[in-house]
């Protein structure tokens, strides 16, 4: 028996250990470390020149918001996109986008192409904020309460069922205050940036 013949089984054992470890950490579950903690401080440049960017101050504007992380190269993002369009039509709360590890042109084209559900889109080109937020993969959706505290996180595409059973209750719990009287977040609905 030579060491070369043992190599495949050694690699495989390492792989099995890795996969077993991965099983105990369900990526679909939230990163519990960040739940009920304030979102990191950040200030992202705007996807559209002249349009609103996204900063942590927008998340502390006194009313809950949805933050969605997306990229043009991500298929599930396309799959969940119609849900975001519906969501943004139906809610009077802001829906923010973070364009993750993408080029500006591709990100703009994605939204021009499919429609822009976001009230503001920040660009996280190098994925820096993604690391602070604990973004595992795109798409990801967060519910942040009016004080900038993350209350809910979902990794993977949104589905109608998930919106009804998890996202909406999380929004309710995040203390949904009356919208119009609240302080308007930067680039509120109706600014129409992005020129669909």
């Amino acid at each position, binding site marked *: 028996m030579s060491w070369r013949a043992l190599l495949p089984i050694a690699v495989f054992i390492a*792989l*099995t250990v*890795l*996969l077993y470890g991965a*099983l105990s950490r369900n990526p679909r579950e939230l990163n519990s470390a960040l739940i009920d903690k304030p979102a990191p401080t950040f200030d992202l440049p705007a996807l559209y020149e002249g349009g609103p960017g996204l900063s942590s101050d927008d998340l502390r504007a006194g009313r809950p918001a949805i933050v969605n992380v997306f990229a043009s190269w991500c*298929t599930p993002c396309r799959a969940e996109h119609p849900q975001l369009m519906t969501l943004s039509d139906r809610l009077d709360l802001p829906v923010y986008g973070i364009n993750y590890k993408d080029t500006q042109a591709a990100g703009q084209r994605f939204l021009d192409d499919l*429609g822009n559900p976001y009230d503001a889109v920040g660009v996280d080109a190098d994925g820096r904020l993604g*690391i602070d937020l604990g973004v*595992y993969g795109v798409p990801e959706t967060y519910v942040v309460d009016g004080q900038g505290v993350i209350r809910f996180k979902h990794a993977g595409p949104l589905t*109608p069922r998930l919106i009804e059973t998890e996202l909406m209750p999380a929004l309710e719990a995040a203390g949904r205050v009356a919208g119009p009287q609240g302080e308007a977040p930067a680039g509120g609905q109706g600014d129409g940036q992005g020129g669909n």
Partner: protein
Amino acid sequence: MSPELGHLSLWLAFGLAAIVAVVPLIGAHRGDARLMAVAEPLAVGQFLFVALAFAALTQAFIVSDFSVRLVVASSHTDKPLLYKISGVWGNHEGSLLLWMVILTLFAAAVAAFGRNLPVSFRARVLSVQSMIATGFLAFILFTSNPFERLIPAPPQGQGLNPLLQDPGLAFHPPLLYLGYVGFSIAFSFAVAALIDGRIGPTWARWVRPWTLAAWMALTAGIALGSWWAYYELGWGGWWFWDPVENASLMPWLAGTALLHSAIVVEKRDALKSWTILLAIMTFSLSLLGTFLVRSGVLTSVHAFATDPARGVFILALLALTVGGALTLYAWRAASLEASGLYRPVSREGMLVVNNLFLAVSAATVLLGTLYPLIVDGLLGEKITVAAPFFNTITVALAPGFLLAMAIGPLMAWKRGSLKSVVKDLRPAIVGTALFAVFTLVALDGEWAPLMGLVLGVWLVLATAMELAKRIKLFSTPPWVSLRRLVGLPKRQWGLTLGHLGLAVTILGIAGSEAFTVEKLVTVSRGQSVEAGPYTFIFEGVNPAAGPNYTAVEGHFRVQRGRQTVARLAPEERTYTSPPNTTTEAAIKPLWHGDLYAVVGEPEQGGWSARLYYKPLVSWIWAGAGLMVVGGAISLTDRRRRVGAPTRAKADRADASAGPKSVAAPAE
């Protein structure tokens, strides 16, 4: 037939599998013919019972039996029949049952058609195959029972994701599984041979047709999946390096390597240990794909609803199956001494290069797919590996691989001469150089796709040269060449069409990447939009309705100059159960490219639309088709040879004499 009958059939199949997993193995060890004889009828029996269970489930879907939980979760009375049936495998439990149908089908096929295998070897193969079947039947019975009842039965089901209601996708999983699971036979042959201790040219001749059949199905399955993505997702992309796509690509790469290394074992009795390892790894990668899709460790559009208990169960199966095989390999591999010696510059040498490239590609895809897990496990950070990584690697590996692929078939066995190969390829080299100059001067685009075009042309020309040389084109009178062409061994067509198919696919990828014209516009009635040499004229929309959806149908007339070349009617569909919208692209495939139109939301002053001219894009799938056809022709050859050992020997002598005599003048 009732769900309970299906459930019972599964238990019976489980019982039979458990018997075959043990008894024939003992029989083969003791040389007891009676114990070995158990294997065949019971292997066929396993298949019949699993097929019966599958039929029972299918029936529950067809009649919309909503007292079965699975039918409620993924079917609906309004669905057309085809999608009621494809709904059977549109979920975790049903797809696993389909997986089992194929696994036991292959075992039954070995029992029925493997008459030329030595009795003890066949008994061992069926035992190993039944061990896998036992494990997966236990998985179904204990964690994923498809026949679970739901009492009281709800009046209506929850439907199937409308994206999946498509003929392309209805047949994509069965083909893919036929490929994935078909490699289990190569695995069982490898393990049986490790127990047996006899591996040589005969072993390679047995294992190759099974591998080839599985490889063809996998090729077709992957192609169908990417074609579906191309026309159904509505933005013209066809490959996304999604973890689940990668899970199907890895066994394809390993299986392709296995097909080639088995040739070396067969012809030259060399590379045996590596080929056995490849056979084990190919199926292991299939199992790994199953694990990734069903355990939920990676985020993917394809992933099934997850349940931690299932993840642990599959991982245990994976560990037992692969771990067991690799342990056996570590113990026995040393005894597989190579007897055929060869120089690095030889056909064998080139096939080793081919295997290296394919193995490195498979390893890279594996690393890229698992890297997020590794980083998470070691550093606790969450990251994704995206398309740019995989594209870079592909572009880096392609030139060397395609260069070797063109040279290899012209190289002589044992000891080849680079000089004579270069001489044979002179017209191809000149042609490629001219095309490269033309590309540089006349074509605009990014460098990587343009390089792809040049490489594609190179492979087409080199493959043509190899065929021309086989039939002595131009060096003998035309009728002699024609006679040689007709008389070519069928496996030669496997080589020619397989390599040509890859070249065509590469041209399709490179051409569509380099030259696609894309227009994102808002159109009003009568408006025309230019896309490349074509003009799309918008003729308005009208409502349309299908069995379980309503749609808006847009109409485009496409002109080239003043000539109307196509009428396109893309749809945007709204499904009600479950509520969802899908885009149905309208595509007119022309030999030189596709006209592709998608209609979207109504906007101020018109409708949003995406219009494309995508040069060469359908070549991607045409190339895959060529590969499958090449495989099929080669397979008909094999089957006859396997059935007739004396002729096979004569063929072999002829085939190995062929390249030598061809190469002789150059030496």
